[in-house]
């Protein structure tokens, strides 16, 4: 199997879906001749023409509103929001509108659209090219939210997202784009939305995470092994709906749970995972549920020193694991 980076996996998957299905088209800022600022659609306008590769004006609300209209009218748009930090103007169309179309029309209309959003930090993006935006979407009934961490997952989940009949927010961690590489089959595989994956098996403690943090957690797990702590790692992959079953099964087994995320803690994915564990694993827990997250400040300073201090790191994860496993 070829080894590809996350951005290559994303690019290959969109290309192959566009080739297979004439209803699939893409729209967004600079996705044409420029190929997208991260080059996710490099060469696409030459391949598919400007009708199916639409360079939009700088106007996120309409990018999503237009995607909605076209989806309701039979197309399968993939909208690109250039950076997650710029999705806020489109919240009305996504949270207010797209999420409620199926329910609000009693199933007569559907909105099969994918919104691809590069998010997250650690790339010297400062306050406005580093944000995590998953909370609002993961809270909203009617949306699906996907956040793959590996090239394999990115491809299989993106394919599922594009083929799904409901609006899917597809979050791509921009630091993984080139950093993270892996084997990706060239066949047409899909990964079901809503399923977490055990990325490493272990006995003593479960770490639940997603996105870039998965990689730091896996690195830390190797270190922890040396310290004699066997860590099981759950990669959520989908943030709405969250896969309760996988979380509960793992934590019931290990009796200890640490949640690691790049987003700030208050009212976040980590809160929900903790609440799920409390509801379902109470009698199996041997220690408090712990969360490792940045402090409650806007993500994240441009100063390189402060940026690295902001983010959870392998070291911080290892020391949190050590602490939790000794309670």
């Amino acid at each position, binding site marked *: 199997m070829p080894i590809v980076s996350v951005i290559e996996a994303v690019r290959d998957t969109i290309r192959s879906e566009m080739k297979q299905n004439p209803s699939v*088209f893409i729209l967004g800022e600079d996705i044409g001749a420029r190929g997208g600022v991260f080059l996710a659609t490099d060469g696409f306008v030459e391949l598919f023409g400007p*009708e*199916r590769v639409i360079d*939009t*004006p700088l*106007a996120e*609300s*309409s990018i*999503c*509103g*237009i*995607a*909605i*209209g*076209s*989806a*309701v*009218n*039979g*197309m399968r*748009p993939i909208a690109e929001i250039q950076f997650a930090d710029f999705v806020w*103007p489109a919240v*009305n*169309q996504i949270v*207010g*509108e797209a999420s*409620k*179309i*199926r*329910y*609000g*029309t*009693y*199933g*007569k*209309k559907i909105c099969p659209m994918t919104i691809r959003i590069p998010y997250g930090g650690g790339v010297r993006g400062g306050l406005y090219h580093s944000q995590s935006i998953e909370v609002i979407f993961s809270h909203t*009934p*009617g949306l699906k939210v996907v956040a793959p961490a590996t090239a394999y997952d990115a491809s299989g989940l993106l394919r599922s997202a594009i083929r799904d009949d409901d609006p899917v927010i597809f979050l791509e961690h921009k630091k993984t784009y080139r950093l993270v590489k892996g084997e990706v089959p060239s066949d047409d595989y899909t990964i079901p939305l809503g399923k977490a994956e055990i990325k490493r098996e272990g006995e003593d403690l479960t770490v639940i995470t997603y996105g870039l943090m998965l990689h730091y957690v896996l690195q830390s797990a190797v270190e922890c092994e040396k310290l004699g702590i066997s860590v099981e790692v759950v990669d959520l992959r989908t943030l709405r*709906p969250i896969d309760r079953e996988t979380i509960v099964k793992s934590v019931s087994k290990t009796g200890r749970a640490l949640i690691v995320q790049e987003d700030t803690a208050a009212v976040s994915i980590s809160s929900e995972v903790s609440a799920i564990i409390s509801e379902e694993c109470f009698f199996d827990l041997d220690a408090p549920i712990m969360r490792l997250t940045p402090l409650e400040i806007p993500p994240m300073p441009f100063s390189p020193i402060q940026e690295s201090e902001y983010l959870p790191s392998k070291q911080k994860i290892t020391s949190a694991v050590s602490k939790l496993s000794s309670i």
Partner: protein
Amino acid sequence: MTNELNKSRLKKMFRTMLISRALDERVWILNRQGKAAIAASAQGHEASQVACIEALDPSLDHFLIYYRQFTVTLALGTTPEEQLRTFLAKDGEIMSGARQFPLHGSHPRVDLFSFSNVVGTQLPQAVGVALADKMRDSNAVTVVFFGDGAASQGDCHEAMNFASIHSLPVIFFCENNGYAISVPLSKQMAVENISSRAAGYGMPGVLVDGTDIFDVFEATSEAANRARRGEGPTLIESTVERLLPHTTDDDHSKYRRKDDIEGLSRMDPLPITAEKLVSINVLSKSDIQMMEKEAKLIVDDATEKIGNEPYPGVETMLLHSDLEF
């Protein structure tokens, strides 16, 4: 163009206006009786709406409406009974299964939809609908209705701009009744007419008298032809009066001058249209009286039929949701 409106079409149009009015009045009464939760009235907008629809093809075109489109929905072929059910939120309500406010949702027979109460969101959505048509070389036109209030939203700007860049087959049909709830035009914009904004997007902007079915029909037909020829969108501003308060929850005497309110009836499109149709011998006065009676009957029948129907119960609540299996 105008002469395309033959006698039978004109009669049909006027009949729809009468039924719309009769239903509208009934809904208002049902609200006062505590039976309808809320209603926004189309009274004053009937001529504008019926003439716009008459210039289009409900079997082909797409219609994105908002809450004040009572006459539009009837003109498109939904039944008075269906419409009454949307106001009473009864089981089997056809637009949203009584999940939404009246007129929101979509319809199984007519390509008519309105996803939400959020003013202005329908404009980019309509542009997307038209974009899909253009991609598939469909000959359909998309009509999107909105009020003067919606014209202030950012979404209105973004939608018009995109539609014009891509020469999409969209008719932006603005029903300007001079008020966004209580806020008069003078506090909504520093220009006289919304249609004057069209130039800034490179599309035609047309101002029509919304009480004049001929004027509205002609402008809409022309916009539709333009759209079908691939020449792009048109902004039509149809000036009307909102004869009643914003909704059944509102009291416009708080913000409109007494003489202003008293003068509203002069802009009532029903007598205006009736007089025109009589003067060109499409209808006689007695025709009109008969038709008014018929409209009342239709509405009475529907009211009686629906009045005792149940509300949707809990069984259907999770259908078409994340929790459906």
